[in-house]
C-alpha cells in the first residue's frame, strides 16, 4: 500500500508520479489495497454517494440558468469532480461521454505547465473546446475550476454543455461544412477565461462577436461556472468534515475501486475471447455547394472493430483496418474515442451510478495513427465526429451484447445505437434577428432491439442516456419554423424476432423568415451505418431529405384541403408530392442548399435501431398491434415477417395464427431454396474480387485500408486467397 498524504510535489510531477505508479503496480496511483474501504465500508460508500449527489444536484441547478433548449430541455450537460491530477472521482448523469474528455483537458494543462503560466489559482476558470486537447467536437465546451483547501490544490470541478451554436462556416454546433479546423468556429484552447469566480468580460465580448447566437454559449458558461462553484463549495465543506488527508486518500481509492469494479463486472457479465464486427458509413458531397475539393467528395468508410476480453477482465478495442482521416468534419480525436468508450461502458456495465475514471482505466483503445480515429494532422476538422463515432460504438454495443448472451445475461444484450442525424440552422429568425442553432430533438432516436424484447421507440441515443426530444412548443420559440407533423416512421427499426425501436420524422413549415439556412449532418448515405444481431436486420438508416420550395400550403389550408404531415410509406413518391404543390426536392447526403423562406416545407427523419433474431419468429399478435399503431406497415408484416393479418369487424388488424404458420413454413422453404452454400458463393465472388469489379468508392475504401493496415491486407488476402495489394494498390511499395 502506497499511502501518501497531500503531496507537496508540484502538479506536473504529481501527475507523472501517479502515471508511474500505475505502470509499476497496475493499480491507480499505486493503491494496491483499499484500506479506507476496509476500515469503514459504510463511511466509504456514504462519501462516494455524497459526491455523486453533489454532481447531480449541481447539474440540475445549472440547467435552470441556461438559456439553451439543448441544455434546459434535452439535458446536454454533465458535471464531474476530479482529483488534482485530473482523474474523475464522481460524475452526474447527462452526457457522460465528456467525463473522460475533461480529464484529458485537465491533464493537458498540467503537462503544459499551466502551474507556471497562466498559473492555477483559487477562483480561476479554465475553458476548452479543442478536441485535440480534450473534447469531442467544437460545440462541446467545457469549464473547469480548481478546488483549493487552505492553499492546497485538492481537486477540480468540471462541467460541459453542448452548445447549439459554435460560429462555424455553417450555422449550428455540428458544423457540417467544416473541412479543416479553421472553419469549425470559435475555439477556446485550454484558456483561462475567468478569475475570482468571474468570467472575464473580454472573453464574453469575444463570444458575443464570434457567434450567431451568443446567448446560448454565454449563459451556458454561467451555468457551468455556477455548477463548478457549487461542487467546489460542497467538496470544501466535506473536507472540513473529514479532513484533508482522508479526502486525498479516499478520492483516489474511489477511482481504484472503480477500476476493480469494472474488471469484476467484465468477469461477471461476459466471456473471454475475441469478438469482431464492422459497420460502414457513406459520405456523399459531390456537387454540393460549399464543399471545397480538398479530397475526393464521396467516401465509403469501413469501421472494423476487434474486441478482446482477457481473463483478467480487461477489454481492448482495436480499430485497425479502418479509413484515414479526411477533409471533412467527421474525424475524431483519441479524446473523442475515449469519450465514446466511456459513455458506452457507463450504460452497459456500470449502470449503478458510482462509476468514475477507474472504469476507463480497465480498458484500452487501439487507435491506428493516421486514421479518422487518431489523425496524424491536428488541423483536421472534428465538428461532426459523432457521424463515425456513433456507428463505431454501436458495433461495440453489439460485441458486448454477444458476450452477455454467451454468459446467459440475455436481458443485457442490446443491439445498440445508430447515428442521430442533426439539423443545424441559421439566418434570420422569426423575430427579424440573426440567429443560429442546432435542433436537438434528435436526442430521441429508436434504439436497437434487445435479445428479449423490441427496442425503445423514439427514446434512445447513445450519447445522452437521458433521451428526450423536447417539446415542440419550445423548439418553435427558438426557430422560424412551425411543426406540421411529428410522427413515428413505420418500419424504421431493423426487422427481427424483436424489432429495433422506431424513429420519428418531423415536417416543418418555414415561417416568418426570408432567409433560413438548413443543414444536416451525421446521417449515412448509400449504406446502413448499423447492424442487427443473431439474424436481425439493420435499420434503414440511409435516408434522403424531402423538401418543398414555394409550396401552396397556405392556399390549401385556406381551402380546407388535406395537407401532408409526413413523407408517407411510398419511398418513391412522398405524400408531400401527392398532396402539396410546389418545387419538390429529394436530397441525398448532407442537406446543404440555398436558403429557404416562408412557405417552404422541410422534413427530416431520425434513425431507428437494428433488429434481433430471425424475422420468422416474430410474435404475430405484437405485430398486429404494431401495424395498428403505425410502427410497422401491413406490407412489412406480410412480406418481411410472414404474418397474415385480417381486419376485425371494427377494421383493426388481427393476426391469423394458422395462416401465419402456413405462410412462414413456405417462406422458410423458399429461403432455403434461394440460398447457396457459402463455399460456392466465395468461389463465385472471388472472381469479382480478383477483377476489383466494384464501384470506385468501394475500391478506394479497400486501397485506403490496405495502405494503412497490414493486418487488414493479410485478412483480406487470406479470406479470398488473393493478393489484395496487387489488386487494389498496384505499383505501391509493400
Amino acid at each position, binding site marked *: 500500500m502506497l499511502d501518501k498524504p497531500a503531496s507537496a510535489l508540484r502538479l506536473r510531477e504529481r501527475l507523472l508520479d501517479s502515471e508511474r505508479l500505475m505502470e509499476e503496480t497496475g493499480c491507480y496511483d499505486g493503491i494496491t489495497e483499499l484500506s479506507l474501504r476496509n476500515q469503514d465500508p459504510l463511511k466509504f460508500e456514504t462519501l462516494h454517494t455524497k459526491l455523486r449527489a453533489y454532481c447531480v444536484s449541481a447539474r440540475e441547478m445549472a440547467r435552470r440558468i441556461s438559456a439553451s433548449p439543448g441544455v434546459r430541455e434535452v439535458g446536454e450537460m454533465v458535471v464531474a469532480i476530479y482529483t488534482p491530477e485530473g482523474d474523475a472521482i464522481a460524475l452526474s448523469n447527462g452526457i457522460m461521454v465528456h467525463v473522460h474528455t475533461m480529464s484529458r483537458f485537465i491533464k493537458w494543462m498540467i503537462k503544459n505547465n499551466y502551474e507556471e503560466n497562466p498559473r492555477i489559482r483559487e477562483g480561476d476558470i479554465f475553458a476548452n473546446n479543442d478536441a485535440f486537447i480534450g473534447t469531442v467536437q467544437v460545440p462541446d465546451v467545457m469549464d473547469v475550476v480548481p478546488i483549493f483547501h487552505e492553499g492546497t490544490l485538492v481537486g477540480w470541478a468540471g462541467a460541459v454543455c453542448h452548445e447549439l451554436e459554435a460560429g462555424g462556416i455553417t450555422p449550428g454546433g455540428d458544423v457540417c461544412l467544416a473541412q479543416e479546423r479553421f472553419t469549425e468556429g470559435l475555439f477556446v484552447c485550454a484558456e483561462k477565461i475567468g478569475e475570482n469566480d468571474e468570467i472575464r468580460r473580454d472573453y464574453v465580448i469575444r463570444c458575443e462577436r464570434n457567434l450567431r447566437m451568443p446567448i446560448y454559449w454565454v449563459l451556458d458558461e454561467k451555468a457551468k461556472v455556477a455548477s463548478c462553484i457549487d461542487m467546489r463549495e460542497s467538496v470544501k465543506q466535506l473536507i472540513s468534515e473529514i479532513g484533508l488527508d482522508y479526502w486525498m486518500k479516499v478520492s483516489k481509492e474511489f477511482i481504484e475501486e472503480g477500476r476493480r469494479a469494472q474488471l469484476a463486472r467484465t468477469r*461477471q457479465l461476459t*466471456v*473471454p*475471447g*475475441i*469478438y*469482431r464486427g464492422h459497420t*460502414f458509413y*457513406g459520405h456523399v458531397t459531390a456537387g454540393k455547394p460549399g464543399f471545397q475539393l480538398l479530397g475526393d467528395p464521396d467516401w*465509403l468508410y*469501413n469501421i472494423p472493430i476487434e474486441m478482446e*476480453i482477457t*481473463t483478467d477482465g480487461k477489454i481492448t478495442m482495436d480499430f485497425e483496418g479502418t479509413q484515414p482521416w479526411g477533409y471533412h468534419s467527421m474525424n475524431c480525436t483519441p479524446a473523442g474515442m475515449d469519450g465514446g468508450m466511456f459513455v458506452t461502458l457507463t450504460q452497459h456495465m456500470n449502470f449503478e451510478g458510482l462509476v468514475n475514471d477507474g472504469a476507463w482505466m480497465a480498458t484500452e483503445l487501439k487507435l491506428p495513427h493516421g486514421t479518422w480515429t487518431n489523425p496524424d494532422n491536428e488541423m483536421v476538422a472534428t465538428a461532426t465526429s459523432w457521424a463515425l463515432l456513433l456507428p463505431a460504438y454501436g458495433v461495440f454495443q453489439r460485441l458486448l451484447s*454477444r458476450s452477455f*448472451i*454467451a454468459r*446467459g445475461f440475455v436481458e443485457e444484450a442490446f443491439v445498440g445505437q445508430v447515428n442521430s442525424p442533426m439539423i443545424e440552422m441559421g439566418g434570420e429568425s422569426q423575430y427579424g434577428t440573426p440567429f443560429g442553432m442546432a435542433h436537438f430533438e434528435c436526442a430521441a432516436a429508436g434504439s436497437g432491439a434487445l*435479445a*428479449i*424484447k423490441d427496442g425503445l421507440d423514439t427514446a434512445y441515443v447513445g450519447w445522452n442516456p437521458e433521451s428526450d426530444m423536447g417539446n415542440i412548443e419550445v423548439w418553435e420559440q427558438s426557430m422560424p419554423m412551425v411543426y406540421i407533423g411529428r410522427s413515428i416512421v413505420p*418500419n*424504421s427499426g431493423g*426487422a427481427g424476432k424483436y424489432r429495433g425501436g422506431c424513429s420519428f420524422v418531423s415536417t416543418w413549415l418555414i415561417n416568418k423568415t426570408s432567409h433560413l439556412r438548413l443543414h444536416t449532418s451525421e446521417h449515412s448515405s*448509400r*449504406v*446502413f451505418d448499423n*447492424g442487427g444481431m*443473431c*439474424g436481425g*436486420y*439493420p435499420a*434503414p438508416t*440511409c*435516408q434522403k431529405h424531402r423538401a418543398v420550395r414555394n409550396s401552396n400550403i397556405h392556399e390549401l389550408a385556406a381551402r380546407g384541403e388535406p395537407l401532408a404531415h409526413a413523407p408517407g*410509406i*411510398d*419511398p418513391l413518391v412522398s405524400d408531400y408530392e401527392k398532396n402539396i404543390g410546389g418545387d419538390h426536392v429529394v436530397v441525398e447526403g448532407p442537406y446543404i442548399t440555398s436558403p429557404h423562406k416562408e412557405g417552404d416545407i422541410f422534413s427530416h427523419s431520425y434513425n431507428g435501431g437494428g433488429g434481433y*433474431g*430471425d424475422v420468422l419468429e416474430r410474435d404475430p399478435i405484437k405485430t398486429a398491434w404494431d401495424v395498428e399503431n403505425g410502427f410497422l*406497415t401491413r*406490407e412489412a408484416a406480410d412480406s*418481411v415477417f410472414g404474418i397474415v393479418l385480417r381486419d376485425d369487424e371494427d377494421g383493426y388488424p388481427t393476426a391469423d395464427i394458422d395462416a401465419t404458420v402456413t405462410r412462414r413454413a413456405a417462406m422458410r*422453404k423458399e*429461403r*432455403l431454396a434461394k*440460398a*447457396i*452454400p*457459402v*463455399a460456392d*458463393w*466465395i468461389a463465385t465472388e472471388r472472381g469479382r*474480387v480478383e477483377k476489383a469489379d*466494384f*464501384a470506385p*468508392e*468501394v475500391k478506394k475504401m*479497400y486501397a485506403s485500408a490496405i495502405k494503412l493496415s497490414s493486418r487488414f491486407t493479410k*485478412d483480406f488476402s487470406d479470406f*479470398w486467397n488473393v493478393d489484395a495489394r496487387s489488386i487494389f494498390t498496384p505499383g505501391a511499395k509493400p
Partner: protein
Amino acid sequence: MTSYSKEVIRDLAAGQLPWPQTRRIMSAYKDDDRFFKMVAVYQDRVAWKDPILLPVSDHLFICQSGDERITRCECGHSFGDYRKNWKLNAAINVRNTEQSLREIYPNSDLPDPEWMEIREFICPQCGTLHEVEAAAPGYPIVHDFEPDLEGFYREWLGKPL
C-alpha cells in the same frame, strides 16, 4: 446472493417474463449462478444430447460432441469445429439488387447495392436465419466470436470443461 429459479430464467430467455419482473432483474444485482442455469434451460430446449458448453447466438451453441467441440444449430445441424467460423459452413442468400433489398425494406430508402449488400447466413437444415451482415461488396465474411473456452471455464467458472 441473487438467484432465480430455472423457470424464471427460461421465461426470461423466451421473452415471456412480464416486463415489471424483467425490469427488476435488469436493475438488481446479477445472479452469479446464471450461466449454468441458462445452459440447463437451453439444454432442455434442444432435441440433441451433446452437452452445451456455450451459447453463441439465439439458436447456436458450442457443444461437446464426442471428442470434438462443435458449433451446433438448435435443430441439430453441425457447423463444425467451434474454433472455425461457422458461417463458412452455412447457406447464404445475398441481397445485392434493389428488388431483393426492397423485400426487406418495403417502405424505406434503400442502400446502393454497389456500395452495400445484405448477407443472410442460414442453417442449411432448418432454414433458421442465424446472422445478417451488412457489408460492402467484396468485404470478407466476419468471424464474429472466438471464445476463450478453456480460460472461461478454468479461470472464471472454476470448473473443468
